[in-house]
């Protein structure tokens, strides 16, 4: 019994999470319409991202679309584990 190759494991079910680059977000808000479960808008209209991991396929699909729809390229999906805001901890 051997593990599948790393590439295959990752493509199957590696959980992801949404990462937002706040310096790029301009508050278009399209992401929140598409992936309302994981992305909301604050009182000023800017995206607020739930950084917890996404395993479920439908949520994942919508998250992926939200990422693709951002006119500013502010969103990305990253595989977990991997720090979501590494920069905040040490610079």
């Amino acid at each position, binding site marked *: 019994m051997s593990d599948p190759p790393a590439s295959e494991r990752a493509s199957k079910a590696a959980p992801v999470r949404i990462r937002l680059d706040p310096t790029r977000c301009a508050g278009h808000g399209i992401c929140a319409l598409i992936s309302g479960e994981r992305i909301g808008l604050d009182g000023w209209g800017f995206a*607020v991202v739930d950084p917890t991991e996404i395993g479920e396929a439908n949520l994942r699909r919508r998250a992926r679309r939200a990422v693709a729809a951002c006119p500013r390229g502010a969103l990305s999906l990253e595989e977990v584990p991997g720090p979501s805001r590494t920069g*905040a901890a*040490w*610079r």
Partner: protein
Amino acid sequence: MTGNAVDVAGAPARPQGPSEAGVHGAARPGPAPGAGPCPVGHPRARLLAGPGREEGAEAFEVHLRRLGALPDGLPSDAAGLAEVIEASGLAGRGGGGFGVARKLRAARQAGIRPLLIVNAAESEPASGKDGALCELRPHVVLDGAAVAAAVLGTDEAVLYTHRGATGVARALREAVRERSAAGSADPRWLLAAAPDRYVAGEASAAASFVSGGDARPRFLTRPLALAGVDGRPTVVHNAETVAHLALLARYGAEWWRRAGTPAHPGSRLVTVAGAVGAPGTVLEVVEPTPIGALLSAAGAAGPPLAVLVGGYAGRWLAGDTAWLTDFEPDALRAAGATVGCGLLAVLGHGACPLTETAGLASYLAGESAGQCGPCVFGLADVAESLHELAEGRAGRRDVTRLRRQLEALPGRGGCNHPDGVAAMVSSALEVFADEVVRHTRGRPCPRPDRRGAFPVPPRCAEWR
């Protein structure tokens, strides 16, 4: 390559001497106990030991007579020095408090050609400790930078200052010239003078400026120690932080740890500003000392109305509380504050704390790098709400709205600027809760002196 960093002087290449044991004890400064607040030149001071303030920058030869040369074979004994730094437990003194050994190790292991940035851009308007250190003890800072560069395995160090801080840049430049003339085995020194913006002192902003960009913080997906200036592993250390390395390399970790507390070892510098007899006083805290003793050393007669601790984006403490709290990370945390950049800004009894907080919030909102929506719009809203409150034009509902605005800010920027401002304002609403109630009831502010007590510099329009 390093776009905004220019050569200071053509320092000679470091001679590759034979490896020697790293830590030699020259004449060690006296033991710590009973030190109290140490001003410049105090015999029990560590970083600030030596000539008094009136004597100005300590010349290289005076510095060498006082402390002895750095241990021989510095570059080849990088591993030994790294162990000393590790054993010391030295944490950054710029505000973040990150472990120095860990940052250096990460960058050293990350790949070729790391870069050291010595952050002497003291962006806190009322803080003066890094400036005093660079202007009075430039060779302690440069020695420490040479140690950090050796541990990193790099032969380049950038001295990062604010453009307006001409005294700091002049002192460092002159010190570099002296060392070069003396043939000191140093890294190549580069000087970068950034615009006088509050957030320009943030590490990623420094790296951005040094690589030729704006002195604005960057949203990092990887730490600078792994990928910084031009993709090179970059370590940004505060000037005081590297200065400690000059002492650590000479006297070792055991001696160095006798200052401070076991959990937070080493001495630390403090600036006392605001309503004291001698605002701008820089002191070295060698052992846990109540804030009251530090304020007294700067000419305070007794507990003030309040103290803003750690910087303009720090935390307010009531004067009575602050007076008795030790200036030490754990004691400050227990009281609801952080050491931050070591600033103690004192608010006198004649001032209105809400007016002061509103003024600071306006200043800090104006110092946003303008990159992130929550920072741009959020801080402006917070400042406006605070002014309404301070002027008696806000009701309870408005205060609730202000609290909601504050809750929406942490973690929402590319850097921690909005987090810091939100924390400072939140601490004001807590510490000055009685004042908030009084002001929302439309009663006249009992403190007639409504002028801002803390210095706020004019806005710099440039980012490059």
